[in-house]
């Protein structure tokens, strides 16, 4: 379970997060929406160690992870993808997934089996010996997702997974993400501008505005909240 309490982050005079609370139970998908600059990505960056929070706490299964280094947070079970995939472009898909299992202590056979499983899952198995740079942007996002999943994380942070992805791949991504909590026993924090996907996938939704939570609840609640309609949907 991921628990964020009173999370604050400033950049000089700019307040990026002003005391955010968030709770992601195991096996659930939390959707986060908000305008550009509302603090969504900053929050993910604080959770996975890219930024050190100014105040507040971030707990994973009761253990404080706020302020730890990126690789430590990853080893504790937090996986992360980015709007622009950060894959190893001149490694093959298999090698991308192999590097991600370096810290797992698994044997070569188990690592290979994990890689094969996830490449099948994201339907890129036939391209397993191709270099990642040969793939389309959407396929690279699938590789990045597979790369974090081979490490069997407890929490997966997905930043704009559907941005720039064609509809067919987006559907594949949606079906893979939907299965993560049930089949792979992890929680998902999903940041996206794609409201349809967020409404489809999320058990709970947070709407952020100017570094704070404007509204939260299930899809119906958020859709009906007049503050959200005014601030986010602009109507």
């Amino acid at each position: 379970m991921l628990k964020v309490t009173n999370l604050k982050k400033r950049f000089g005079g700019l307040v990026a997060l002003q005391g955010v609370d968030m709770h992601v139970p195991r096996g659930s998908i939390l959707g986060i929406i908000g305008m550009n600059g509302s603090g969504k990505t900053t929050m993910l960056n604080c959770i996975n160690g890219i930024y050190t929070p100014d105040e507040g706490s971030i707990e994973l299964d009761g253990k404080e992870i706020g302020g730890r280094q990126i690789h430590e947070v990853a080893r504790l079970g937090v996986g992360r993808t980015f709007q622009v995939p950060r894959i190893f472009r001149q490694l093959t898909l298999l090698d991308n997934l192999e590097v991600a299992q370096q810290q797992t202590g698994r044997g070569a056979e188990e690592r290979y089996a994990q890689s094969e499983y996830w490449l099948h899952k994201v339907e890129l198995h036939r391209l397993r010996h191709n270099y990642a740079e040969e793939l389309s942007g959407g396929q690279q996002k699938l590789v990045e997702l597979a790369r974090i999943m081979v490490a069997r994380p407890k929490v997966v942070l997905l930043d704009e997974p559907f941005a720039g992805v064609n509809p067919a791949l987006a559907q594949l991504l949606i079906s893979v993400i939907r299965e993560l909590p049930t089949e792979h026993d992890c929680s998902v924090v999903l940041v996206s501008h794609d409201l349809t996907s967020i409404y489809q996938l999320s058990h709970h939704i947070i709407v952020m505005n100017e570094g704070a939570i404007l509204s939260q609840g299930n899809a119906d609640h958020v859709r009906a909240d007049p503050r959200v309609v005014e601030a986010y949907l602009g109507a």
Partner: protein
Amino acid sequence: MTGLLIQGLINGLILGAIYGLIGVGLNVVFGVLRVVNFAHGEFLVLGAYFAFFLLEYAGVNPLVALPLAFAAFFLAGYLLYFVLIPRLSKADDPEISSLLLMFGVSIMLGALMLLAFDADARSLPYEIEPVFLKFGPVLIPTVRLVALVIALAIIAALTVFLYRTQLGRALRAIIMNRDAVRIVGINAERLSAVAFGLGVGLAAASGVLVAMVFPAFSPFMGNDYTLIGFIVIVLGGLGHPVGALVGALLFGVTEQVSVVFFNPSIATICGFALMVAMIFFRPSGLFGRQALR
């Protein structure tokens, strides 16, 4: 004339292989850390002295001293990384700062060697019987052939390490995307320290071969070898040991074959002209971005 040409070609291949070894060490450090290690040549000369003193005072064969030099300098480089490099990330321009820092380290090491070992050139009193091997009109010192085999074997081992082991894959991955390596749970600092140690260890191993093959070495020679390392990187491209080897062989053969036709000064110009031409026509080197694959 044909005999001289073949002799030049073989000399070029032998020197090229050693230059390749010098280049791969520098290549690993620059690729992983983006640190221009100006002190690479000084570490190489220290490796030469390491072999010299082991032979002089303990009677250790240079072929045994070579792995010892690699291990000792790997460890020294691994520890030195934590003293020197992490601070650079706080600089406004870490690459320029690294260049200046390592330039300072280079001067410092040169001065320390001068103090410790004097300015006199030394040579390694080591020969392998028979001293020369004769192939028709071509005469090759046996020690040079042995050095060629060792240099090629080390580069082959490094290639296997980088392409067939988990640690090697991680080193290649960090060259491609440092942030992504952290995100998959790898301690990038420790991995960088391994890369720096590897670079310094390879420099020292090259130094042992240089001491075996060349008539003399002195504290002043570090810069020359650093320069050779950079030429090799420019020619072969960043990232792949085989790229470095091919670049180095090209440089070595150009230099040595030119000696057959021109005086040595012009031969040196030919080697550098090759580098200038490469920067002009193919700035990413012979292997280019493909080298990382």
